[in-house]
């Protein structure tokens, strides 16, 4: 018998209401998205017993659209990982090859979709956490433009970077799910797009864009993000681009020198924000109690001992990066790099419609392979993190297999250019 994939932290069915666009479809929800009455652990021992008293906006939208929620999917603790191995509830296995990781941090969601345990799933993407597991498990994952989807109810890891995004077997199904969850939300001020033009999701229908028409589409192949890739990955990537060109697209090389700084900038900014976002876990209102002996600083410390090692590492890094005397050297510098990356992409989109690269520079790791070496794991985020730093939309679409393992093609679009990347990606998986 195949080993258990361990895609859910909590399996619980929430039936949808009425006959909306997702009636009859099942959706797995990443375990950092709040579900009223169903525990939301973030893959952490800290929140093993935490039951939210409210639904995230996306969860409301799912059930109102008729979707049936199948459960809360496994994830790296608080989204901090690229393999779903840092979960306090054990690793999830890759359905394509159970000796390998499914990617992370939304590994449970991607694996559930790939294994057919659920039709669709929601993940969250802070530095690649939807696209990486989509690529490793051979499914489609979309990281929307920052502000397209409400984050209300998403337990924050790095709030200036992350978005909730859909995972599905095909581009058009991922786009259907995006149609349901996208839109302004008065509870998330960052979904306010423009007072005059309104929110793009109010008029766009993403599923209609999945028409496979790439005639005349110009694709920029980002040299910096192809150079570092494993040869087997690069080969599949080039074949996928060739396939798009064969369908009428044009491809040319583009250079974005700033993306070489992305991993460093990402880890400084993400950990800085995490050190603040995760401060609320002190055992006072929820989470593991720190007990009642000694003073409250000790109680806080005892409570926070229930974080796993990767979470502790990132909180310490972020606290350091924000400290007086170091903030200029780390946090400010990272913000400068972020601005540079944003500019680089803006200029590139004057020339091309989408920017293409392998989603992940590597094939899925063996279980346990990267845990002992965090730096290797961090470097695997080289192609996905620039997109979060620039707040842009990106999709990972399956581009065949190498050595029997899935490879993902990443297509990045301009701000709120979801239709463009969905159209392009739909030509790949058609």
């Amino acid at each position, binding site marked *: 018998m195949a080993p258990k994939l361990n895609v859910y932290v909590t399996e619980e069915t929430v039936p949808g209401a009425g006959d909306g666009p997702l009636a009859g479809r099942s959706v797995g929800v990443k375990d*950092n998205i709040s579900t009223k009455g169903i525990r939301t652990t973030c893959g952490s021992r800290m929140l093993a017993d935490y039951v939210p008293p409210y639904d995230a906006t996306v969860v409301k939208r799912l059930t109102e659209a008729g979707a049936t929620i199948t459960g809360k999917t496994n994830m790296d603790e608080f989204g901090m990982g690229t393999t779903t191995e840092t979960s306090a509830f054990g690793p999830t296995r890759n359905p394509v090859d159970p000796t390998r990781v499914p990617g992370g941090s939304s590994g449970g969601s991607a694996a559930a979709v790939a294994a057919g345990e659920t039709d669709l799933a929601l993940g969250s993407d802070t530095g690649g956490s939807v696209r990486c597991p989509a690529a490793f498990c051979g499914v489609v994952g979309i990281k929307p433009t920052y502000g397209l989807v409400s984050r209300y109810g998403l337990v924050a890891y790095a*709030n*200036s970077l992350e978005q909730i995004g859909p995972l599905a077997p095909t581009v058009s199904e991922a786009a259907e799910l995006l149609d349901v969850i996208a839109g302004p939300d008065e509870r*998330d*001020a960052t979904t306010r797009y423009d007072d005059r033009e309104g929110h793009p999701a109010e008029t766009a229908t993403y599923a209609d864009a999945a028409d496979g028409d790439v005639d005349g589409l110009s694709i920029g192949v980002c040299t910096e993000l192809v150079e570092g890739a494993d040869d087997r990955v690069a080969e599949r990537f080039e074949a996928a681009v060739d396939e798009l060109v064969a369908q009428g697209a044009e491809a040319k090389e583009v250079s974005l020198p700033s993306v070489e700084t992305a991993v460093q900038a990402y880890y400084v900014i993400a950990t800085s924000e995490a*050190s603040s976002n995760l401060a609320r876990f002190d055992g006072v209102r929820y989470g593991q109690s720190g007990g*009642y002996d000694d003073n*409250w600083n000790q109680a806080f410390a005892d409570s926070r001992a229930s974080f796993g090692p990767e979470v502790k590492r990132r909180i310490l890094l972020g606290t350091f990066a*924000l*400290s007086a005397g170091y903030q200029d050297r780390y946090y400010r510098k990272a913000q400068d790099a972020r601005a540079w990356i944003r500019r680089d992409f803006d200029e590139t989109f004057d020339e091309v419609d989408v920017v293409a690269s392998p989603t992940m520079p590597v094939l899925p790791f063996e279980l346990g392979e990267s845990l002992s070496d965090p730096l290797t794991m961090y470097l695997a985020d080289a192609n996905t993190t620039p997109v979060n730093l620039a707040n842009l939309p990106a999709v990972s679409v399956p581009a065949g297999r190498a050595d029997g393992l899935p490879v993902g093609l990443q297509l990045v679009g301009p701000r709120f250019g979801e239709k463009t990347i969905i159209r392009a990606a739909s030509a790949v998986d058609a």
Partner: protein
Amino acid sequence: MSTQASAERADLAVVIGLEVHVQLETDTKIFCGCSTTAKEDEAPNSRTCPVCLGLPGALPAVNEAAVEAAVRVGKALDAEIAPETRFHRKNYFYPDLPKNFQISQYDAPICRDGSIEVSVEGERREVVIRRAHLEEDPGSIVHAGGSIDTADYTLVDYNRAGTPLMEIVTEPDFRSPDETRAFLAKLEEVLEYLSIFDGGRDGSLRIDANVSLVPATEVADDGTIDKETLAAANRTEVKNISSHKGAEKALAYEVTRQRNAIKRGRAIDQETRHWDESRGITVSMRAKEEEKDYRYFDEADIPPLQVADWRERLSIPELPDARRERFREEYGLDNEAAAKLTSTKQVADFYEDVAGEFDPGLAATWVADVLLGELNYRDMGVADVADRLGEVVTLIRLVDKEEITRKNAEEQVLRSMLDEGVDPETVIEREGLGTADEDEVVVAVREAIDANPGAVADYHDGEDGALNYLVGQVMGATGGTADPGTVNERLRATLAEANEG
């Protein structure tokens, strides 16, 4: 100040700067829809939601009413208002802080470089407001069974968490504790005029004061002190002050304490001190080893808010100083009456209503002396009778039409209205206080003359007191409802007739 005392103090000058936290009177909290008003006997943590409890996944959404209030404060303080409002996170762990960071404004305060003019002992002084910014109030902490040192355990109540706060920071411009009192009273008055502040609410005003002493020779002729001198002086931060009166007491204590220490050759420790109001002393809380590192950074959940045109869009009412001046000119009031009648916006608005209908002098007497006097005696303010001011106008109207005497109106009707909560007509009806008619007076005069032949004889003998005595008898018989002047006239006439007859 005695000459001797001045001589002793001549060598040191007082330097005080204030940080004033003011709760803004908005309907809802600054980042969520929870009410800011405590219900009577509300349970702890009942006026909360995922946002103000800092539940995982909850996000702040700015209540624009709080930002509008801040812009109005900026206008009233004649401050610069930043065209773009941004928020930051101030990171520190404390049990009353739901997220273990406070959303505040670090290097982008909504207001900066304002000022307030205060007058102390007739001397006008300008206090410079360095900055004023918005932030969220933490919850409140209840030390069960004692103080922070002796409590067995501590409870936290988040009902207050998320109440909009404005922190107003002054330059170290105060040279005495009474200046801080005058400033704070003025600030409260201005905030009250803007209708964004309720001084009666517990915790609505919290003051931290930085206090130091510098050699008096360092004070320039214009009262300024250079930055190096200020930086070199060891200062204490006094916390837990909650009123302008408290500020004067606390700072007078602290100045004396520092002065005595220096006199005895001891250095002033740089420390935070707690004002213990019941004991009337400041006590050391903790040494201030170094600046705390709050790791401020941008709050990405709140996009910058463009407020460049808000200054123009939002109006503020006439402020107390201007209104006082206008009252003097327009209504011919003296300084004292003008000051009393502009002490709160509600009083001033009411006065102008009354002065519009009646003679401004009569209106001033009624509002400043009669009404405020009676309210003050009962520890009440105009705000406590806000819904009954119409009844007061009715009463003044009755006096104006001479349907009731002024004395009865003041001493009986108004007092019953305030004590029993009844309307003026009811009191007048019940007590029979309507002005006595002509017939009643005629009858009472006749009876007084008949019943007091001795006094009548004295009157005819030219004794001064006799007529007053007879007036008193008539007034008594009519229960005070007769007009004393009319009674006086009627008596003289009747006595004259009798003498002739």
